[in-house]
């Protein structure tokens, strides 16, 4: 603390003439505090010293433990003085010092004396101080006085006790709850604030008792609550009761009349609280809204900024759900655009954008243009988003809105703001065909002078998709080619890709694009090895390498400038969306060594990896070498693949289609823990039993799993691989392989028995006895279900994928799912039954919604793509109905999906 003091003195110099605390220094003030010990106290002097100490604390100065203790003890001496002013400062000081428990004892008796003093000020303040610094044990001693204080004639004393009660309820609820009779009496107090504090405390005491809260509200809404603050509280409690009542009964909303009557209260804070409460009611009707909107509208033209702000903020929220209800306020709103307070102006504009009609758009845009230059980016983003939704609402007005967006795109602004604008333009181009050419040109102009690499690459990519489809694609070429010269490697690479797309899609441009791409070959950035790798990684644009990309595109376009048939593979490569998880490509590429054999993208597993949680429990157990089998159960797809291909018996099974998540075959905490992973091949199924021996005194040898496949007729056992020994806490794997008909999703039930020889082990020495006993251990049954044949593979755009598969093999049917806990529960049950990948976040069901649509995608065994659209509905007694639409490339598969649901 010593070193900043010098600096502080410097700071103080500028304000020399102002401050009575000029040059104040902690050490000196602590010295001064010795006057507290004088036999003849000078109250004035002591007050000044305390003020100085409080000033230091307030400025952020801290006292060491010793200093604080010293000051505390000195201050306690001051209880001798009868000067009220000094006593008040003593109270403040004690609260600031927040003394420790053993220090508290020193002042307790003085404070308790003050609590029973005749002076109201003493009583009130002593209560607040004592309750602030006390702990539970002391509280029982003073409880009696506190209960008296709650019903004290003096409102200041009563309030002090009640507010202290509210604070104490957090630490010692059991004591405070005993005061509810007194608190109830205080609710009836004639003093406004006592009523407020009593109501707050009473509600907090009873908040977990719904019935009591409801009773409290019922009685108070009939009676008269004097304090506006208490009335605000009552409104909050009432809305809580309304919300809870609404879930159990329907019909007329209880207490609405009370809320509405509060709109005519004389205090503005109550009117506003009630209006806001009404707008936030669940499923509020227009009729209920109208009176609330009317009072808020009056507030809009108030002279008080706070009132205008409160009103416009609330109306802005209402406009999101009930835009029509707010339109009446539009004229008042428009005048707020020029409000001095920019927060109010922004809220007004965004509200207007939500409620405005087609004819007012142009006028509105004019007003906004003037306004945009003097608000902060955070407000601008809000406005841009509002304009985007307005444009989608009134597509005919795209011209003025698009112009507006392009204008603000050229002005100064940070990344988030620019991104919001670009995103908006892109969305408008997608959704409003007329806006396309205009919008693309705006974007082209923007990338001419864009400092954000991310935005440039996004725009270039977008140009590549949309540009070639326009009436005159050639006009974009110049903009794109300029990027190849003037930008960093990432943007250059993106520009090359875009050029190639133009070349591949527009025949007329091929020769010109070819010339341009040729030039790109001289790009200096060439740390390349394989163009394939780069190309794949361009999806993670940080590795993109321009030169090699240009080479590839030259191959695509045709090396001698002629128009050649671009074959499907290359086209897919350029334009198709990659349906392989990037993480998987990355791993595969890392393992790939440049050699004779080209990298085969089809060898990359398509399964979306799920994070193996169980794996994390046993860290640091890495396989010793590449040849050695891993010691822990590997659970990622490629790890499984590696493991299985290392076992000669399974090497001719072909490519692994899918591995299931581990299924537990034992209860938790049994002697032997076994789970199983189902590996699905085209003609085989391999069960991988992961076993752990949890008994330190045992060693298991010759461990096998005896599988009874009598309830799985289509399966025939072909191989099994027992475990020679299973020591304590060192997991091992047993495998069993079954043959099944090719490409058929055969299902069945398998019962399993663990058979082994047990040998005793001395856990202290590790010695193993020679003789063992044969033993068996029953495991739970294992099922192979249809979902095992479906692989989770996501699609990036479900609608496009759905359309492109087409309705040839569509199967639609409806199912009743019977009574369910909730819609969300039904949805997740069907998803796990089908074992498919939810798309576009549709696995999440909104709270309280009555219907839901869920989109799933996956690949069925035999590499058949399957898409599923599920529509759920729930009615009163939790009966869930479901409509299932399946599209796939094979009608058998579509039927199969229905079978899974029908049998599940």
């Amino acid at each position, binding site marked *: 603390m010593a070193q900043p003091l010098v600096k502080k003195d410097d700071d103080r110099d500028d304000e020399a003439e102002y401050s009575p605390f000029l040059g104040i220094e902690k050490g000196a003030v602590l010295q001064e505090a010795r006057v507290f010990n004088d036999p003849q106290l000078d109250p004035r002097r002591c007050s000044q010293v305390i003020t100085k100490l409080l000033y230091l604390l307030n400025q952020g100065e801290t006292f060491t433990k010793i200093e604080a203790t010293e000051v505390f003890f000195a201050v306690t001496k001051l209880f001798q003085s009868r000067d009220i002013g000094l006593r008040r400062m003593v109270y403040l000081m004690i609260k600031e010092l927040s003394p420790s428990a053993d220090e508290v004892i020193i002042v307790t008796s003085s404070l308790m004396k003050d609590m029973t003093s005749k002076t109201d000020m003493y009583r009130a303040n002593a209560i607040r101080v004592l309750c602030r610094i006390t702990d539970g044990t002391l509280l029982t001693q003073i409880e009696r006085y506190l209960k008296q204080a709650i019903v004290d004639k003096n409102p200041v004393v009563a309030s002090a006790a009640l507010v202290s009660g509210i604070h104490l309820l957090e630490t010692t609820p059991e004591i405070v709850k005993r005061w509810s009779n007194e608190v109830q009496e205080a609710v009836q107090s004639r003093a406004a604030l006592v009523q407020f504090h009593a109501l707050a405390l009473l509600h907090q005491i009873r908040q977990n008792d719904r019935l009591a809260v409801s009773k409290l509200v019922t009685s108070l809404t009939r009676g008269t609550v004097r304090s506006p*603050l208490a009335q605000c509280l009552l409104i909050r409690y009432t809305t809580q009761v309304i919300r809870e009542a609404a879930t159990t009964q329907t019909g007329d909303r209880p207490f609405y009349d009370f809320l509405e009557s509060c709109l005519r209260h004389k205090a503005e804070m109550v009117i506003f609280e009630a209006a806001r409460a009404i707008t936030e009611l669940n499923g509020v009707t227009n009729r209920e809204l109208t009176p609330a909107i009317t009072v808020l509208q009056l507030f809009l033209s108030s002279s008080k900024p706070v009132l205008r702000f409160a009103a416009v903020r609330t109306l802005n929220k209402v406009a999101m759900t009930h835009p029509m209800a707010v339109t009446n306020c539009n004229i008042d709103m428009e005048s707020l655009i020029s409000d001095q307070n920019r927060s109010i102006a922004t809220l007004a504009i965004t509200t207007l954008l939500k409620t405005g009609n087609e004819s007012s758009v142009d006028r509105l845009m004019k007003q906004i243009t003037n306004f945009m230059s003097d608000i902060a980016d955070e407000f601008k983003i809000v406005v841009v988003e509002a304009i985007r939704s307005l444009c989608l609402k009134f597509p005919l007005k795209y011209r003025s809105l698009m112009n507006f967006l392009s204008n603000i795109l050229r002005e100064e602004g940070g990344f988030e703001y620019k991104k919001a604008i670009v995103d908006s333009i892109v969305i408008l181009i997608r959704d409003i065909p007329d806006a396309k050419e205009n919008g693309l040109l705006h974007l082209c102009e923007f990338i001419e002078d864009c400092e954000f690499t991310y935005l440039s690459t996004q725009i270039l990519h977008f140009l590549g998709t949309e540009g070639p489809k326009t009436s005159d694609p050639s006009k974009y070429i110049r903009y794109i080619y300029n990027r190849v010269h003037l930008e960093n490697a990432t943007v250059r690479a993106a520009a090359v890709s875009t050029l190639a797309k133009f070349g591949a899609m527009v025949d007329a441009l091929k020769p010109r694009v070819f010339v341009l791409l040729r030039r790109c070959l001289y790009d200096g950035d060439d740390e390349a090895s394989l163009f394939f790798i780069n190309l794949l990684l361009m999806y993670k644009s940080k590795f993109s390498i321009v030169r090699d990309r240009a080479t590839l595109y030259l191959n695509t376009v045709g090396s001698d400038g002629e128009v050649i048939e671009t074959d499907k593979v290359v086209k897919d490569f350029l334009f198709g969306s990659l349906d392989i998880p990037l993480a998987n490509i990355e791993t595969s590429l890392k393992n790939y060594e440049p050699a004779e054999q080209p990298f085969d993208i089809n060898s990359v597993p398509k399964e979306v990896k799920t994070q193996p949680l169980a794996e994390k429990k046993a860290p640091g157990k890495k396989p010793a070498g590449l040849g050695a089998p891993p010691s822990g159960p590997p659970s990622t797809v490629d790890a499984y693949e590696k493991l299985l291909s290392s076992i000669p018996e399974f090497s001719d099974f072909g490519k692994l289609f899918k591995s299931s998540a581990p299924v537990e075959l034992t209860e938790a905490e049994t002697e032997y823990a076994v789970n199983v992973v189902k590996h699905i091949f085209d003609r085989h199924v391999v069960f991988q039993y992961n076993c752990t021996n949890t008994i330190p005194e045992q060693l298991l040898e010759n461990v096998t799993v005896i599988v009874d496949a009598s309830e799985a007729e289509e399966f025939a056992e072909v191989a099994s691989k027992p475990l020679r020994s299973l020591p304590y806490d060192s997991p091992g794997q047993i495998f069993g392989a079954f043959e099944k008909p090719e490409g058929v999703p055969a299902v069945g039930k398998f019962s399993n028995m663990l058979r082994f020889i047990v040998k005793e082990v001395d856990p202290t020495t590790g010695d193993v006895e020679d003789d063992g006993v044969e033993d068996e251990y029953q495991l739970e049954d294992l099922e192979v279900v249809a979902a095992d044949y479906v692989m989770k593979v996501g699609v990036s755009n479900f609608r496009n994928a759905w359309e492109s598969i087409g309705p040839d093999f569509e199967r639609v049917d409806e199912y009743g799912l019977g009574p369910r806990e909730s819609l969300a529960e039904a949805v997740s049950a069907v998803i796990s039954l089908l074992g498919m990948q939810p798309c576009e976040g549709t696995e999440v069901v909104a709270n309280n919604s009555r219907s839901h649509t869920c989109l799933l995608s996956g690949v069925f065994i035999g590499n058949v793509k399957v898409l599923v659209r599920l529509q759920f509905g729930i009615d009163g007694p939790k009966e869930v109905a479901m409509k299932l639409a399946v599209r796939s490339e094979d009608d058998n598969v579509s039927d199969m999906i229905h079978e899974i649901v029908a049998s599940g």
Partner: protein
Amino acid sequence: MDTCPSIKNILLLDSEGKRVAVKYYSNDWPTNSAKEAFEKAVFTKTQKTNARTEAEIAMLEGNVIVYKFVQDLHFFVTGGEDENELILATVLQGFFDAVGLLLRGNVDKKEALENLDLILLCLDEIVDGGIILETDANVIAGKVASHSVDVGAPLSEQTISQALATAREHLTRSLLK
């Protein structure tokens, strides 16, 4: 929003954004540097606005801040995002007017620092641990200005100024009834 209205902090800064007196009731700003950073942000955001005739309002870091300026003093009251703005404004007005009464109309930084004890007591009487204690400026000032001697003390021991203060207290009391 079923909870009691609560105040996160009350700030009294000078015209350069430096502290005159501040009081924090919430743990949103645990360290002194966090507090100072917040004060700086609030001050910068509001300094160019005109909050001299009517209280103004702004949002910052998910908080609603109402504020009012007089001379070289800036008064702020902060509440949560969902707090009723008018309740915050009432607290601000109570603080603002009470300081005006206590400083007898000479509301500026110099006067405030010279009577810092009154300002600190005033803060103490408005809000207790985030809960609004009192919003009526006359009552707040009355409680603070009862700066007299213990009622038990004989009248002769009072100085003239103390006697005046007692008289003023009696006056405000009688006004309230």
